[in-house]
């Protein structure tokens, strides 16, 4: 009899515990259904990119037609609660081409030399991105427009002698890309981007818009 009482008592305890747990869970906020902080707040995102680019148009036809794989950049952006983000980016790109010995005419003067043509740029730009997917989507395609200045170094070598031109010139760019989160709601991810850039340079072989198209891969880290 005593045993039966004990069993009933234990069963009642188990049932009560089950109900209590259920009731407690219903009363607590559903933490797992809350939006991620990345969706609720603005946050920062830093990206380091490496890549290559190809000269286009007259830049390619008249000066350097060789692609370069020495593009690097770092950017810091502020991701807004809507689909936009704004930020700044500083980079570096470098183009080079060696020509065999040839004769060049300058008025009454003839010059025989091996030409080494170079152009390096350090673009410092502000940009705006429009993202096509929510902030925690694993794949986040975006469009980008940018504008700023570029520290231009045009160095045309005749043998070991150089004709150098250094100026600060306006630059702009438009691009498409995508961010890839390594894990949902994570802080780390990859970035790929294709970007058209143009810089206004008019000197010697360059007569206006120095256009390039580049592709880059990068890693980003975001925090809030």
């Amino acid at each position, binding site marked *: 009899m005593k045993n039966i009482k004990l069993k009933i008592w234990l069963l009642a305890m188990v049932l009560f515990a089950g109900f209590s747990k259920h009731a407690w869970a219903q009363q607590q906020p559903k933490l797992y259904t809350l939006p991620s902080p990345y969706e609720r707040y603005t946050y920062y995102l830093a990206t380091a990119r490496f890549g290559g680019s190809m000269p286009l148009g007259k830049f390619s036809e008249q000066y350097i037609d060789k692609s370069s794989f020495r593009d690097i950049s770092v950017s810091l952006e502020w991701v807004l609660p809507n689909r936009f983000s704004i930020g700044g980016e500083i980079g570096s790109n470098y183009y080079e081409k060696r020509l065999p010995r040839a004769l060049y005419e300058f008025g009454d*003067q003839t010059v025989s030399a091996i030409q080494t043509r170079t152009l390096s740029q350090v673009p410092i730009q502000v940009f705006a991105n429009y993202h096509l997917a929510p902030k925690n989507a694993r794949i986040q395609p975006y469009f980008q427009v940018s504008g700023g200045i570029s520290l231009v170094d045009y160095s045309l070598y005749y043998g070991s002698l150089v004709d150098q031109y250094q100026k600060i010139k306006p630059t702009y760019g438009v691009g498409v890309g995508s961010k890839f989160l390594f894990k949902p709601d994570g802080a780390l991810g990859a970035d790929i981007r294709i970007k058209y850039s143009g810089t206004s340079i008019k000197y010697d072989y360059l007569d206006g818009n120095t256009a390039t198209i580049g592709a880059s891969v990068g890693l980003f880290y975001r925090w809030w």
Partner: protein
Amino acid sequence: MKNKLIKIPLFIAACVFFISACSKDPISDLSTEESLVYYTNRDKAANFQQYKTFSVSDSILVVQNNRSGYALTNFDRDLLSGLIDNMKELGYTYVGPNDKPDIGLTASYISNTYLNVASIPISSYWGGYPGYGGYGYGYPSYYQYYQTQESYWLVSMLDFKNADTTNKKFPVVWNAQIKGRDIENPQLVDTMVNSLFTQSPYLKLQ
């Protein structure tokens, strides 16, 4: 806030300086011969077909800044011989300086040293930011002196036949310069002299 405004351009300047410093020398792989540059100038009014004979100076004029003198080293001899051989190949007749040559060739070695001044590390790139007048970079702006030297060979062709008797001058109808690395390398003397004439086909007598 004020501190931040100063730090941002400083950060950008540091990035730019770092990125610029990483650039490699694009001509470090050029050989000595590849580094050479040959310049030739001509008087387009001159008719080279009128000249038949030539002579060559017996030594090299060495000019260093404001000083000058004459020299005749083994290299100089090779260079003068190279001039004679090339002129002969073009159809001219070599004569002595007292045999009234139509044209005369002289060779000079010019070496000028320049003292330059530069403010370090602020170059023309980041000479100042608008709106931040009065701010420095946290370190003193100072100047550095550096010396550069330019050396080259100069070969001149003088027109003795049509001398300017009024001003007592010989017109220079052709000249050439050789610039680049190691221009006193004896192994390159033939290459250097031959190149000057190869790129001047108008000197050839018909």
